[in-house]
């Protein structure tokens, strides 16, 4: 009963859905943000200011002899900008600085959906014997507490075990 309650609470609290498809030496990551985006972020998008969502992907392995358990870090940056004269949203997704996909959207909702459901990102996975896990987070913008202390607005870190490719 308690386990069920915890699982339900975890499922309810999850703001980032992560789907993993393993392939030999590769891992396809499909992300989807399910939480409400900040109002100022959406207003900026509608007004024509360039906005972005940064998905941080970190691959971990249990390395007891090292204090740093991280194997690799990747960054999926999804950007959008509306042309106020044509009303068209220009969309682009970059994985570690390389363009992964691009597109156009005619409406805000379409653009937001494209950004919160970015195209699958394929990241290299090293050959290993130990289990791996992927930690993912989506960041929307930066706010400041007490005027000077940076505070990133985004989802919580989501951890998923990486299955071995069949």
């Amino acid at each position, binding site marked *: 009963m308690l386990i069920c309650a915890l699982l339900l609470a975890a499922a309810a609290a999850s703001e980032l859905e992560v789907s993993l498809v393993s392939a030999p030496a590769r891992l396809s990551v499909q992300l989807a943000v399910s939480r409400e985006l900040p109002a100022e972020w959406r207003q900026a998008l509608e*007004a024509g200011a360039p906005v972005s969502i940064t998905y941080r992907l970190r691959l971990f392995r249990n390395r007891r002899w090292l204090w740093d358990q991280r194997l690799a870090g990747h960054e999926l940056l999804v950007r959008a900008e509306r042309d106020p*004269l*044509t009303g068209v949203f220009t969309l682009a997704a970059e994985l570690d*600085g390389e363009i992964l996909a691009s597109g156009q959207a005619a409406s805000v909702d379409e653009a937001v959906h494209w950004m919160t459901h970015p195209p699958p990102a394929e990241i290299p996975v090293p050959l290993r014997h130990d289990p791996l896990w992927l930690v993912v987070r989506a960041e929307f913008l930066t706010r*400041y507490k007490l005027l000077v202390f940076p505070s990133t607005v985004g989802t919580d870190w989501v951890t998923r075990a990486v299955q071995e490719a069949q």
Partner: protein
Amino acid sequence: MTGWRRRWQRYRRQNRVLVALYLLLLALAGGGYLLFSRMRALPPEELTNRLLTFLLWWFDLTLIAILLFILLRNLVKLLLERHHGILGSRFRTKLLLSYLVLIVVPTSALFILGASLLSQATASWFAAPVEGMARTGTELAEGVRLDSESRVRRIAGVVAAALTRAADEQGRLAELERLHVLMGNDFTGYYRNSIAVVELVDPRLRTLLRLPTIEAPLDPAAGSRSERAGPTVVVRAWERLGDGSWVVIGDALPEDLVAAEGRLAAGGAAYERLKLERPTVTATMVLGFGGLALVVVFAAIWLGLYLSRSFTEPLLALVATTNRVAAGETLEEVPLPAEDEVGLLVGSFNAMVRRLRGQEKEMRSTLGRLDAVLGAIRTGVLTLDADRLTVTGNPAAAALLGLPVLATRTVALEELTVAGLGKLVDAIQTAAGPTRASHTIQPGGVSRMLEVAVVPLGGENRPEGWVVALEDLTQLVRAQRQAAWSEAARRIAHQIKNPLTPIRLAAERMARHVERGASDLEEVVPQGCRAIVEHVQSMQEMVDAFSRFAKLPPTSRRPFRLGELIGQVATLYHGVRPGLVVRTTDGLGGREVLVDPEQLRQALTNLVDNAVEASVGGGEIVIATAVDGEEVVIEVADQGQGLEVADAELLFQPFYSTKGRGSGVGLAVVQRIVTDHGGTVRLEANAPRGVRAVIRLPGGEG
């Protein structure tokens, strides 16, 4: 291990700056790497903002870390110094705390106020009117586009309806051209099976032909789209006909209008972007202002520490030197080139040190001479501490007491007791003031008679030490004793020889008369026998006098009225000789003196006897008493012939007489009695004539 640690500490001290610089560069490099790795994909403006924020944060954190380090280090150092009671720590603590309160409190208040003002100022940038204007530009551009799309879509609907009504393909083309001209379209196209049947374009806008074709089938059947075409924006609308063909109507917005809309829209977008960066801008300004405040605080604290050091260091150097000088460690001057009031103080101190150096040099010279004198004299000198527990001596004292160690180091006084010098130790320890006495001691089994003089140093009440002078009287007393025996033998022989001669002459005369058978034998023999008996009697009296002098009993002193004793003696001599008056003068007033009355009566009787014998022609004998300080003075003065010898002291020697009769022990008995009472007696000339005998006795008990 210790050597490595010492080398490391020396290396660390010498290369502290290099190590700090290395760590700083390492931190900078690491921070920069992290920063740029996280900001690779950011646009330049945002990168600048984040870089500036990072640098300000780094600057502020560095300043805070340095400030905290300096403050904590100095506070801990001051607390430790206060704990150990190091001079100047209290003053420096007060000075530092005063600087902290005077600088940190107002600067913090100023920073809080300034940060609040900065925050309000940035908030005012995003006030409602400004935001309204920015949104109006965006909405205007949107409105123009939507209006144009609506209009073009209506035209497309009209054209599609007209083409539907046309009878054949030729009719459709004619109607299309007519409506293109009639409606004033910039672009009119007719498509079937993804092939352009006809495209009519304003000759001035041939760039519209380069736009991508709107493909069919389209879903929805009618729609519109806006696209950029060079400096303008083209709005295209399409409408599908019943047979699957479709028409496209395009309208290019005026370039000026598009440019104006673009500016408005760009302003709105820039405003929104700035609004999105508003927290970063505020943080940057506050951090910059905070950094400035920290620089002020840092400079003030550094200045405070520097000033506190510059104030206290000269004083501490002066205090440390004065402490060393006061402790007797050194007589060094303070090497402080100061010109202010501290410099005057240092100059005065240095002058005092130079004067002390001169006095110390003189004192060392004097001590050297004193050591030489003490080493050369034959009088033994002992020096003791105030409690008379330790003692040192000069070589003469060491030789006298048979303790060579006395001349080389300080020894405990108890060691003298162990060495058999208990009498000397008792004499030293029981002395309450300056005393002088003779003691016979046996250092090393050899008997020595020492005259011991004990003198306190620095006052009798609280003596700072004691000095004991030891004079060896052994040889002197032995010589005096031998001389006294020689003199006594000579005088006894003289006294005995005087009566022997008449006895021998009387015996020889009687013998001669008996041999001759002289007729006057009966007369001569009685005469000779009488003479012999008289001289034998004289010798008997002399022997009795010797016996009395030798068997003089020890004194038994008790308080006695001296005036009463003198009165009794004077009474004995009233009318002893015609023309002689014996008179007394009492200056004691019934005062009691600690004396042996019988012995003192005998001494006075001897003196008055001498005075009576000297007063052949009569006159006056005065027995006077007086008090002189702590002594009682008794004078017996006559008006006789006066002293017949130059040295009056000879008269006190036993068997010495100038009268040609008597035993010659009268004055010797007087001197012995007076000496046994602790007093003195002397003879001196009386004015205008005669002799005056003066006895001085201690009268403290009276």
